[in-house]
């Protein structure tokens, strides 16, 4: 079942916790969806890899990478794939249901409040503080993932090129994936062959 079974993380595999139940998947993705604040990928990694040890760092990174190039929210796609891996259709529904359900309820509440009260100045400062912290949280998580996976030099260059292309040149994501993807895959293929 584990896709990275013959990968370089045999040691990490032995440290994994038992697979999650459907309810645990639902609750974990509820937390991720509710508290992600635009940084759901960061929070998902900390819940799945660090706290619960359901997946190895490399396994999670690969699933997130596929989830990112598919249409739809990265972590929404990740929830489908992680859920499916552990419990098939029921798992995929539990994980993605958790991801969307409670935020949807809260959003409805916020829309109702917004109709009535508009926005107050105190709420604005609070939201701006959270937004700044969320930005740092996402940057820190990218650095941590890069750090822990110990990428070879060419992978670091490819990763930084992707950052430049998205943050500075503002290229659309499909263009970045089409430009860098083949080079990155070729480099990964050559490494595997050694």
């Amino acid at each position, binding site marked *: 079942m584990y896709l990275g079974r013959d990968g370089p993380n045999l040691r990490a595999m032995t440290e994994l916790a038992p697979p999650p139940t459907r309810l645990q998947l639902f609750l974990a993705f509820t937390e991720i969806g509710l508290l992600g604040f635009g940084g759901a990928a960061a929070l998902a990694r900390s819940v799945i890899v660090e706290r619960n040890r359901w997946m190895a760092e490399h396994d999670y990174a690969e699933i997130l990478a596929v989830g990112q190039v*598919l249409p739809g929210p990265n972590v929404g796609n990740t929830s489908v794939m992680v859920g499916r891996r552990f419990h098939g259709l029921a798992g995929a529904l539990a994980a993605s249901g958790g991801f969307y359900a409670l935020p949807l309820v809260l959003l409805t509440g916020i829309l109702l409040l917004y109709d009535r009260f508009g926005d107050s100045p105190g709420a604005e400062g609070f*939201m701006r503080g959270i937004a700044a912290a*969320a930005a740092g949280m996402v940057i820190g998580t*990218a650095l941590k993932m890069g750090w822990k996976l110990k990428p070879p030099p060419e992978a670091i260059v490819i990763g930084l090129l992707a950052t430049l292309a998205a943050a500075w040149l503002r290229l659309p994501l499909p263009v970045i994936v089409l430009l860098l993807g083949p080079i990155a895959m070729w480099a990964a293929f050559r490494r595997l062959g050694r």
Partner: protein
Amino acid sequence: MSGVVLSLFLTFATLSLLAVGGANAIVPEMHRQLVEVHGWLDSATFGQVYALSQAAPGPNILVAAALGWVIAGGLGMAAAMVGIVTPAWILAWWVAGISERLAGRPWLRAVRGGLVPVAIGLILASGLIMAETAAVEWVGLGLAAAATIFAWRTEFSLLWALASGGVVGLVLL
């Protein structure tokens, strides 16, 4: 009414498969469809609803649900949400199945492994883009820098960083 609901569903279902990289990729097209093509709401309302759903907890894609709500109430929200989620959901399910079946093939491991550095680079970029709008003054910059180090160098729950950011923002921003 039911015509609008069905039309909302179809509009968002089409947008779903274009949302590579998440909701932000389709905001311009959403604006074009809802405001210019269908005339369901004006541009200012679109902007307010977008900002509101960005500030709300949860994935950015919920902007579709919020727009559906404003256009056609509860049914509109359900139609927009089901429309924006379902096609991408099915695609993710299908791709997960294929990659489980082909697991262990060297070329597939190269494809997936090769995407990892690109994905991490893109996460870094989205953090930088978020910081560009969120960390404009010294307080925001300091908060973002502190949260970066917190997430990178510690193993504590990231919720502490978000909660502290909110409290500092409430007092200083």
